C-alpha cells in the first residue's frame, strides 16, 4: 500500500512500471481504437455488441478530446515534443491539454520546473508555439 501513498503525477511519481512504459496521447489512442473498431466491423454486423463498455467509453472519450485528427499531425506533435527532453508522461499531458502559455504549461506539468532541469519559460513558449502551428496547418 505504501507505493500508492506516494503516487503523485505532479512530481512524476507514477511507479517505475508506468514511467518507463509508453504513454499515449488521446489522439493516438483514438487512431488505435478506431482501427480496431474498423477491423471488428469487417467481421461482424454489430460491432458495438462485441466490444466492452470500457472500450466504448474510451473510444467516445478520445474522439471527443483529440486535439489532432489526422495521423500526420499526431506524428508531428510527438516529434516536436520529443525534442525537449520530456518524459513520456509529460509529453502526453502537454499533447492532450495543449496549454497556451508557459505559465499554464507549468501549472499543468509542474515537473517541468523541478530542480536540475533546464526548461526556461522561453523554451516552453517556443515549444507551445510549434504545437499551435501544427494545429493551425492541420
Amino acid at each position, binding site marked *: 500500500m505504501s507505493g500508492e501513498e506516494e503516487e503523485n503525477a505532479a512530481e512524476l511519481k507514477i511507479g517505475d512500471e508506468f514511467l518507463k512504459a509508453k504513454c499515449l496521447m488521446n489522439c493516438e489512442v483514438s487512431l488505435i481504437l478506431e482501427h480496431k473498431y474498423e477491423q471488428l466491423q469487417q467481421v461482424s454486423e454489430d460491432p458495438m455488441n462485441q466490444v466492452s463498455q470500457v472500450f466504448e467509453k474510451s473510444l467516445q472519450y478520445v474522439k471527443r*478530446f483529440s486535439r489532432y485528427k489526422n495521423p500526420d499531425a499526431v506524428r508531428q506533435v510527438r516529434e516536436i515534443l520529443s525534442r525537449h527532453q520530456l518524459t513520456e508522461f509529460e509529453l502526453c499531458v502537454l499533447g492532450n491539454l495543449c496549454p497556451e502559455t508557459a505559465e499554464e504549461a507549468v501549472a499543468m506539468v509542474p515537473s517541468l520546473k523541478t530542480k536540475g532541469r533546464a526548461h526556461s519559460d522561453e523554451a516552453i513558449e517556443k515549444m507551445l508555439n510549434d504545437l499551435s502551428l501544427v494545429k493551425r496547418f492541420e
Partner: protein
Amino acid sequence: MFFHIVLERNMQLHPRFFGRNLRENLVSKLMKDVEGTCSGRHGFVVAITGIESVGKGLIRDGTAFVTFPVKYQCVVFRPFKGEILEAVVTLVNKMGFFAEAGPVQIFVSKHLIPDDMEFQAGDMPNYTTSDGSVKIQKECEVRLKIIGTRVDATEIFCVGTIKDDFLGVINDPAAAA
C-alpha cells in the same frame, strides 16, 4: 492517462481447442477474458493490440487443461493522483458533480468547486458564478485535477478538484448551441 504496456497472463485452455487453430483460440479467449477488466495496478484494459509471445504449455495435474503463459501488448487507462485531465460532466447535484474521463468516474465535491460558484436546482441542475458567465452542467467539458483514487476489485474511482489555476469549464455544448 493512456499507456501502451506489455502484460503477461497464464491462459488455461481445454484440449478441445487444440489443433492448428490453437493460437487463434488462445488469442480470442485472451481478448474475451481481459478486455474491459480493471485492476488496481494497471488500470482499465481498453484493447489488446498485439501478442508478444506464447510460451510453452504446461499440463495441469489432475485436469485436462493446459496453461500457456501469454505476453501481450495492450492499451490501458490508468488515472494517477495529481494528474490533470479533461472530462465530461455526467451528473450535477448539491453535493458536487460527477464527470467521466473514458472508463473512469470522477467526483468533484462542492468544496472543491470555486467558492464563487453557487448550486442552482431545477431541470438542469448546475453550478453558476454570481455573474452567470460560467456554468457547470451536464455534458459540459471540464479540466480537472485528480486528488485521490480508490481502487476496487473491478473499478477505479477518483476524486477531483477544479479549485486551482487553469482548471474548470473548457467548453459547454449547450451554451454554444
